[in-house]
Structures are given as structure tokens and as C-alpha cells.
């Protein structure tokens, strides 16, 4: 792999490009860059020797993140999704060996010693696919809804994540996600961080499925740093945290971590995760539609007519400004306005007014095209499917081009995962109680 050209990119662009490339040389370049700027490279807080001090939920991220002045969680800036396939030597009679479990757990504990569990250090989850659990004689316990992924609209023909596991690494520091990946799967000397050598035999347990490695970023201003990428127009607003130019993840549009948590059975304190990867057509979105049209399609026609949003969503506080009336008016808007908003539609998937999904999605330039890795946590995969159906809006009497943002998203992959509780994160059996 070739490294991006430092001379033509800003520091942050360069960092993002390095994460996308990955590998030892990218890590080294990234460390050079951060030590060069800061004088000292070690600015990442260190972790803990006491695993019991860490939350039982792998996805307990919110209280370890900062919040903006409106109270919205600020997600970590840099993300890597590592798809993992069990090696043959990690299994006996098809099931994972005790050694493999031990290696996996000790590797993850090494990470927890090296980095603080926070957006400033490292946050991660390890999830498992339905394909992984198929190897066991027992079924997943009742109360765990983890179907095989499926195409969810008539227009998509996605590939499916059929490998075994997915490690989601997230940090505000690009060098952290890079060096963790390198420590786990690189063939160079193990990196050292905060006095902890990232040594690991995880490679004995898992192979990285390179072609499905995914990376990305989120945060105000980050998307505009990619206007050198083909397909990312200069018109992306400067302050936009997401490619499509508006804020997302408003506190009150997000499920709480409690809401998505499996509350009983062996996987209590676990959750389900859906990961879909899609292209986003930004040139048409920004160059052929005006702000009024974009607000109509992202939020609702009323948001546009009453100027509720501002340039990038800054007029909205901790929610997306959707009253119950506006959500209920979705079908009527389709006919009366000829256009409905994405947020308005998706909110129809709420249960008793509560959003069922905890979104942890991020933008990407994987494949040198703008896209989105949509990562969401929910109690049941069925919750995701329901929201997605509401968001697809096949029931609405509105042409596709004006049906929220459907005109602009092109789903390429889908995967479903179980995120077990921390205590069962290392190669769990389908029914650990059996």
C-alpha cells in the first residue's frame, strides 16, 4: 500500500488518509506527525490493570465521551471496523478452543491496560455474527434476536457480513486506532504505549478479512477535509460533522444505552449491532439541490418552510425538532408537499416516543468515494428493521427522489452482530448457560 502524499494534505486530512490505508508504515507516519507537532508523542491517557473497574457493557461509551454545549454526546473521531474470521487452529470440532478464548481475552485486556477507556484513549466492541453462532449445537437463548442480515429494500442488493466477528476500534487519536490494529495484526515489532507492549497472539485466533476492513471519521469540519476525494464536492459546509451537511445523533433522537441493553439471560448487558455500508451521492445532493430542498428531504418540509435548521443543524438543540404532529403528518406531507424528510420518516419507527436505535455511524472515504458506515445498536435487530422500513417509506405516496434521502444512499453491505457483555466477549458459546 502506498502512503498518501503529506505535502498535498492538511494535517487532519493526512491523518484520516493514514487511518484509511492502515499498516505499519501508516502508523509510523502518523506517530511522526503527532510527535512532530506536539513535541512529545505520548498524549494518550493510559488504561487500567483492574478489569473490574470497567463497565460490563462493551458499548458503554457515552459516559466516557465529552458532550457538546447542547448536551449531545461527541462520538470518537476515528473509527476502524476490523472484520475477523476464526482460524482453523482456534477451533476444535468446529467450536472455539479454551486457548483461543484465553488469547482473545488477554489481548483485549492488554488494550485496556494501554489505553484509557474513553474517547481520548480507546473504545472498542467485539461482536459476533449469526454465522459465528451457527457452529454451536445450541441456539442463541431466547431474548436474543440475531437473524441473518437481509436486503431491506427492493432497490438494494447488498453483500452480507458472513465472517465471524467484527472489532470496532474508536478513538479521537488516529494513531491509537492504527497502532492497535498494527499491534494485533501487523508483522512488525509490537508498538508500545504507556509502558504496555501491545503484544498479542490474536493472529492465531482470527484472520483479518482485509477486503472488508472499513474506516471512517466523524466530527465538525472533518468531512470538508475530503474535498480532494472524487465525489466530495467543495460545497460541503465547513462546520458540518457529516458528509450530508447536517448534524445527526441529537441526544433525544438516540436510544440510551439502557434502552438497547439485553436485560436477562446469559447475554444480559449485551446488545445487538447492525452495520451497513453505503455510498453517498454528494455531488447531486449539494450541487443540484438547494438548502431548502435538502432540509425538506433531511428533516421535513416544515423544517424548510419555517427555517428551523440553520446551515448545518445548529438551530436545532438536542433534538431534531420533530413534533409528534410532524411525525404523524408524514403521510400527509407526501401527498400535500410532494416530499418527506428522512428524520420525519424514520421517527415513525419510535416506540412510545422513544427512539429505539443508538447510532454510532461515521463517514468514510473507503474506496476513494464518500460513504457512510451505519453502525447502530438496538435491543433487537427487529428494532432496526422496523426503523429502516419506516425510513424507507415504501408506504408513502411520494416519488423516490423526494422520499427523504433515498435518492442519495446506495447500500452495499449489511451485517448483524451480537455484542456480548464484557465477561463473554471472548468467543462466547451460543448459549453459555446450556
Amino acid at each position, binding site marked *: 500500500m502506498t502512503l498518501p502524499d503529506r505535502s498535498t494534505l492538511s494535517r487532519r486530512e493526512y491523518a484520516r488518509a493514514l487511518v484509511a490505508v492502515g499498516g505499519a508504515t501508516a502508523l509510523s507516519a502518523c506517530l511522526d506527525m503527532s510527535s512532530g507537532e506536539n513535541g512529545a508523542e505520548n498524549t494518550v491517557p493510559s488504561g487500567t490493570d483492574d478489569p473490574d473497574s470497567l463497565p460490563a457493557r462493551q458499548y458503554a461509551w457515552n459516559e466516557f465521551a465529552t458532550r457538546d454545549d447542547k448536551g449531545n454526546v461527541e462520538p470518537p473521531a476515528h473509527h476502524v471496523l476490523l472484520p475477523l474470521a476464526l482460524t482453523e487452529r482456534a477451533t476444535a470440532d468446529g467450536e472455539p478452543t479454551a486457548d483461543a478464548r484465553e488469547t482473545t481475552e488477554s489481548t483485549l485486556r492488554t488494550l485496556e491496560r494501554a489505553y484509557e477507556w474513553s474517547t481520548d484513549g480507546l473504545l472498542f466492541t467485539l461482536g459476533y455474527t449469526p454465522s459465528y453462532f451457527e457452529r454451536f449445537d445450541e441456539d442463541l437463548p431466547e431474548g436474543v434476536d440475531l437473524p441473518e442480515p437481509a436486503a431491506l*429494500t*427492493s*432497490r438494494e*442488493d447488498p453483500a452480507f457480513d458472513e465472517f465471524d466477528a467484527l472489532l470496532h476500534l474508536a478513538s479521537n487519536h488516529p494513531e491509537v486506532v492504527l497502532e492497535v490494529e498494527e499491534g494485533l495484526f501487523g508483522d512488525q515489532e509490537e508498538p508500545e504505549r504507556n509502558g504496555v507492549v501491545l503484544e498479542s497472539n490474536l493472529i492465531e485466533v482470527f484472520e483479518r478479512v482485509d477486503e472488508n476492513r472499513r474506516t471512517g471519521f466523524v466530527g465538525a469540519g472533518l468531512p470538508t477535509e475530503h474535498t*480532494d476525494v*472524487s*465525489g466530495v464536492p467543495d460545497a460541503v459546509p465547513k462546520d458540518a460533522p457529516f458528509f450530508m451537511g447536517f448534524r445527526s445523533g441529537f441526544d433525544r433522537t438516540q436510544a440510551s444505552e439502557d434502552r438497547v441493553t439485553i436485560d436477562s439471560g446469559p447475554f444480559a448487558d449485551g446488545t445487538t449491532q447492525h452495520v451497513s455500508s453505503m*455510498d*453517498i*451521492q*454528494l*455531488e*447531486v445532493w449539494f*450541487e*443540484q*439541490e*438547494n438548502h*431548502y*430542498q435538502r432540509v*425538506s*428531504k433531511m428533516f421535513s*418540509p416544515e423544517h*424548510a*418552510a419555517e427555517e428551523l435548521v440553520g446551515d448545518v443543524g445548529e438551530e436545532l438543540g438536542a433534538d431534531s425538532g420533530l413534533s409528534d404532529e410532524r411525525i404523524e403528518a408524514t403521510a400527509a406531507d*407526501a*401527498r*400535500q*408537499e*410532494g*416530499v418527506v424528510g428522512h428524520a420525519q420518516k424514520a421517527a415513525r419507527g419510535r416506540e412510545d416516543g422513544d427512539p429505539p436505535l443508538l447510532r454510532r455511524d461515521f463517514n468514510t472515504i473507503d*474506496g476513494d*468515494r*464518500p460513504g457512510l458506515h451505519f453502525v447502530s445498536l438496538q435491543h433487537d435487530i427487529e428494532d432496526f428493521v422496523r426503523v429502516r422500513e419506516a425510513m424507507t417509506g*415504501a408506504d408513502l*405516496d*411520494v*416519488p*423516490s*427522489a*423526494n422520499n427523504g434521502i*433515498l*435518492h*442519495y444512499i*446506495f447500500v452495499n453491505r449489511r451485517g448483524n452482530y451480537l455484542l456480548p457483555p464484557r465477561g463473554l466477549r471472548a468467543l462466547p458459546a451460543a448459549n453459555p448457560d446450556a
Partner: protein
Amino acid sequence: MQDFTRTTDETEIDRRTFVAQTGAATGVLALAGCLSGDDDEEDGDDPDAENGDENGSGEDYGDGRPTIEVEDPPNAVYLPTHREAMRMLDPIEAGDMMLGPMLSYPHDFWTIAGSGEDAVERESPDSGRGVHMMFTLWDQQTGTVLPVDDGVQIRVYDGDEQVGSPVSPWSMISQEMGFHFGDNVTLPEDGTYTVEVTIPPVSVRKTGDLVDRLDERVSATFEFEYDDEFRHEVIGGVQYLDEAEWGDRGALEPMDHGDHGEHGGHDGHDDHAHEDEHDDHEHGDHDSHDDGDHEHDHGDEHDHDSENGHNGHDDHAHVPYSALPRIDEYDGAILATADDESGADGVPTDHDSLPRSDDAAILAALFEDGSADAERLADDGEGDVTAGQYLLVSPRTPYNRVPLADAALSVTVERDDDTIVGPDAALAETLDSEYGIHYGLVIDDTQIEPGDSVTVTIDSPPQVARHQGYDTAFLEMPPIEFTVPEQ
């Protein structure tokens, strides 16, 4: 893939025509090969600019895209500045459908998301390099052009490399092309490109020979050459109208039909020859309507056409034009306009006497319970077929009968002071194998009678992108009141 558009000789003819026209019209347009590359030079750090230099930045369209500025166009269908030139490729199969690809230079057009002024935006392509990619989709079995937006997608490849992001092309209407799908697609450099089109199931309500069909997601692939020759062809083939005509009320004739309609030799459309008759008929009609609301004399238009030798489409594999049937093709009772309550005199008898809503011609017809049409139109293959009358409302463009799809219409039927249907009962957008796209309602729990008043409300106007000449019409559409005539 073979290009059926023109032979070299034809290109020469077109270019001479073009030069003559340019002289007569404005002189705004320069030959593609003579353009400067100013557009790209401003953009110094655009990596594509370098490619452009290698290819010769003078070879893109630059400022050479035909001018389309019409000062103060009417709020109605109007004549644009010019006729388009395009390269038409061999139609290809996509499951039960056919797809006819057409390519031109990047176009200005108008997108619409709603109904007010803010909801309309003009797309002015800023990249000189690329194509306006269009295609018409039709059902092989019935010949029906598919005028609905269900989320068609295109992906462009240069060999194995995907070029840019996928695109969902807009559903669009243009005077010459009728209903089609299209968008501007930027291309990095000259070369041979492969386009993969995927078409989701047609989800609109379907009747007649379309019931339970077109339910599969299908795809098709075509290739095209993007090069100097192409650019010369699509720019050089442009024909300007006389500047005095720009913005006049009227419309260019359909490319596939009008070119030939009055002059014979119209040989395509074997599988629905009745449409040919419509056209001949309609063109013949025009003289008698010059004193109507047509300010533009269509008779001249056709003469003009023949003088210019606007040809080049004789020998391409034919792509159907999305014209709806003529008024006398509808077997039901055509509803009278309410201005004339006597019925007979107020019943429109030809296209030009249809009532207008923001310049859309609105045809309304009532099919009696038990008639073959009512039975067909009531049966969409979903659940029990309910017998009853069928009310059909068919908005179309005022000259070329292009269907105005993806609007929302509702209806209220009143008798004396009673509301018989509605108020504001939603009409279902429906694609019928005989009457094409329309908005309809099965009347199964009451009976509409002669003398009833039928008010058609356009809840939202057709949400289709527009080429020049359609951009100021069909936007703020007032309701139309009809009366059911005596039998």
C-alpha cells in the same frame, strides 16, 4: 456498442446547419473544438485539471454548452432556445423491459421537491467534462413507457474501476424526449465507459397487461465512448430556433415523432402503431387551433424542421416517446369543463380543448360499471376486484401529451349540496397498459351521475425534473372543476 445516431455525412450536414443557425441566432455558441479551457484553469489544485490538460482542456464543453437563457419566460410551457442533439445507443434488454440510452452534453435542468418557488432549483453543471446521461425505459410486451420514479440507479465504470459515486438519475420531462431518466455525470477523461443500470420493481399501481409484472429488480449494462467526436456531435448537432421564438408559448415536437410526423416515413413503433396515428392526427389538428391558446404556430415549426434537415434519428433503433393516448382513444365519458354546464358543448373533443391547470392539460374520464375498461382499471391484482365505475384523471403536457407523473391528486364529487365522493378522496397513481400513467379511483360504494360536479385538486404538482420549456409550468396548479355530461 454501435452508435446508430449518424453517419459521418449526417454529422457534416448538421454542422453546416449549426453554423448557419448560429450566425442567424446569437453567435453565442462556438464549435466545441475551438473552446478555451478557462473553466479548468481557475481550479489549479483540482487533480482532474491535469488530466484535462493532457486531453487538451479545449476538448471539453467549457463555455460551449448551448445557451439556454430565455428572458422572462411565461409561467407556461414555452419554446426553448434550441433543439438538442444526442447520441442514441442501441436499446438493451433489462428483464421484461427495454432501456434506450441517450447521451448528450451536460445539461441545465430544474429539480423539484415540493411546490413553491424555493422547492425548485436550477442545476447548472459546473464541470465541463462529462455527459448528460438519459434513458427511456419501456415494457417490451406492451410498449408502455415507464414514467415513474422508483429509484433507478446507475454506476459508471472505467474498466473495473468505478467512476465516482452511484447516481439515482432524476425522472425528467423534456419536450423532445418526453418522460425519461437522466442526470449529468462527470467523467474524468476520454475513454470507453461501462454503465450498469439497476431498476427496482415498478411499485406503482398497475392494471391491464401490467398486473403482476415488472416486479423483479433487473439490471442492464451498456458502453459508450466519450471523446472528441462525441463532443462535436452533441454540440455541433444543436439547432437554434430563431431568437424571436425563444420563450414563446409552445413546445418542440417530440424528437422521435415530430421529426417525421407530417412528412411521412415514420416507421418505428411497430408494436403500437396506434400511437403513430395519434401523432399524425394531432399534427394535422394544429392549424385549426392557432387561434386558441397556442401562441406558437406549430405548422411553422414543422416546416422549419424540414428546412433544417434535422435528421439523424431515422435509423436508430426506435425508442418510444411517452405520449399518452389522444382524447378520442378513451372509451369512457370525457367529463365536461364546468364552465359550460350544458355538458355537450363543454365536453372536450380534442387535446386542445382540455382544461388547463398551470398549463397542464387535464383529461378526466368516467368509465361505467361493467365496461371492459372499468373492469380492467379496477383490477390491480391486489386482493378482491371491486366492481364499480372508474374515474380516471390524466394530466399531460399541453402540446405533446407527455404524462405528468408523480403528482398527488384528489377528487370531490358533489350533487346539489351533497358530497358523493370525498371530500378530497385520494386518486391512486396507476400505470395501465392501455391508458398509461394516470390517477384513478374505483367508485364502488356510490354512483356518479350526469350533472354531478367533479373537482380535481392537485395536492402536489408532478415531482419530476424539467428540461427547459417545462420549468415554469405545472408547479402551482389550481383545481379544475368538471361536470359529468349527459350520456
